[in-house]
């Protein structure tokens, strides 16, 4: 009796999960679909065409912006991963009095609206006389990337057994050694998943970037935003489709590699 009941429940939950996923993927599906639309308008379907992909590859400014965005994402994620990981380990070990408050403050960049951050960064950087460009972008992005990594690593550390580290210390290992040989490998998964999310956020940021970018630099989201204001071109749909395809390819390749290894 009970068994039957749970089975029926699972069925309902299956349907529910797929329905919500459909909701999540529906607009993405339309974006992909209309990247192949011959017409510029999204109100009509004029037939299949690859012309927007052609225009995309001729548009050097979009590709340049994509490069800038990837570079920015990688630089700020690396900086944030270094500062965030070491900081999280420090916070847990040192149990400093001000730790809680400082931790809260360092997570503020993802708690307060982006528009505020963008505005204060711009004003503040010009007070510091920092030249607007990659430097200011990296600093601003690092600031909102740190929280993701910090929280992730902290959560991981909280569930970790301190005995390993202590044993190493007792055996006379220097704290540096302990950090690199024991702590870091243990928290690495958290660092990576934190960086992953941070990278995605950096790659998606418009509001902050608009305020702190310089005259010669466009990031992809800013470019997309200004293009959308000028008039949505299916070119952008095409770009998104390509990026989605690359992500999927990487995933599939990775899976295949993993299975091969398992064999």
């Amino acid at each position, binding site marked *: 009796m009970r068994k039957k009941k749970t089975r029926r429940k699972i069925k309902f939950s299956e349907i529910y999960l797929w329905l919500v996923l459909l909701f999540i993927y529906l607009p993405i599906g339309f974006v992909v679909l209309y990247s192949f639309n011959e017409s510029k308008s999204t109100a009509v379907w004029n037939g299949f065409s690859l012309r927007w992909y052609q225009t995309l590859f001729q548009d050097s400014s979009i590709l340049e912006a994509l490069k800038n965005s990837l570079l920015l994402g990688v630089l700020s994620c690396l900086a944030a991963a270094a500062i965030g990981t070491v900081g999280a380990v420090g916070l847990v070990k040192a149990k400093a009095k001000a730790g809680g408050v400082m931790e809260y403050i360092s997570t503020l960049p993802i708690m307060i609206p982006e528009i505020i951050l963008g505005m204060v960064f711009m004003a503040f950087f010009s007070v510091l006389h920092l030249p607007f460009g990659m430097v200011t972008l990296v600093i601003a992005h690092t600031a909102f990337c740190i929280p993701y990594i910090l929280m992730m690593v902290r959560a991981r550390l909280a569930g970790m057994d301190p005995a390993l580290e202590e044993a190493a210390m007792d055996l006379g290992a220097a704290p540096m050694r302990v950090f690199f040989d024991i702590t870091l490998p243990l928290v690495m998964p958290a660092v990576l998943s934190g960086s992953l999310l941070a*990278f995605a956020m950096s790659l998606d940021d418009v509001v902050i970037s608009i305020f702190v970018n310089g005259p010669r630099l466009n990031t992809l989201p800013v470019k997309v935003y*200004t293009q959308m204001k000028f008039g949505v071109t299916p070119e952008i749909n095409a770009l998104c489709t390509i990026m989605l395809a690359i992500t999927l390819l*990487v995933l599939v390749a990775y899976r295949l590699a993993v299975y091969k290894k398992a064999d």
Partner: protein
Amino acid sequence: MKGKKRIGMLLLAGLVSAGLLSGCGGQTDSGKSESGGSSGELVLYTWEGMFPQEVLDGFEEETGIELIYSNFDTDETMLEKLAQAEGKDYDLVIADDYIIESVVEEGLAQKLDKSKIENFDNINPLYQGQFYDEEDAYTVPYGAGIPLIVYDPEAVDFEIKGYKDLWDESLKDSIALTANYRVINGITLLSMEKSMNEEDVAVIEEAGEKLKALAPNVRMIQDDNTQNALLNGEASVAFLYTSQVTQVLSENPDLKIVYPEEGLGFGIMAGFIPSQAPNSDAAHEFLDYILQPETGAKCFDFTGYYSTNQAADELLENPDLAVPESVTEGEIIQNVSVEADAAYNKNWTEFKAACD
């Protein structure tokens, strides 16, 4: 838990390697452009889509100067950025009339060396000696506009003649408006037979009340792509900038344009050179280049703004863009006192809040 991490790692691994690969290319590129210095570069700062690619390419070919097209989204962002850069970083800026007045007042613009602009005389004198640059010392106009009402006669069952018709009850949830708070306040004032630059706070507040009554008819308030609302049937009436009017008519000639009987607003865009521009020579060259009749005509045909270059008028593919008589009758929106501006702002916020 484990699954999450693995997915995280693999996504990251893939994207980081992709990022690093293309990142290397990016680094060398930006390194190159930054070390290029002032010799052969022009940083042009304006809205997206202000020049046809052909004109930009033509300039680069003719002069060998590398052109960097940098965008802002609003005039105010431009002023803020320019002020933070203390007039450096950008070689040439094209923006709206009223903001240029502030730029000049702040000392962020430099006087033009007209000996370097041979085609200066091509400028239509109608657009010279304006309030933001009375001596024509700082600016070269680049297009003018009159915001107008456009409507779809099939969806509207009476003839719209002026701003006051926008308040008509039959237009419920069907008007698309541009999002400039001064312009929308301005047409409300015009419909009350007042000036668009009204300074009297009591009158502005009265206009605010009237504006609020417009709220039920408003379908959307957007500065960009407002014309699309008319084309794709989201709205049946729209109040549009000139470039949008031009575009909407080229795509659907059956739409009707209204020159509102209460009076017209009017605006000029102009280029100026920031006070500390790294390469003002190149900026002068560019201004001269776009003042050539052929280039000018291409630009106006592309942007859809009224030509400010009288030598270009005859070459326009779209003759409607040559100066209409009515332009001179239009009233330009100017900067007002802090108090009046605050009142306009408040009207705007109240209006938007009343829209839903």
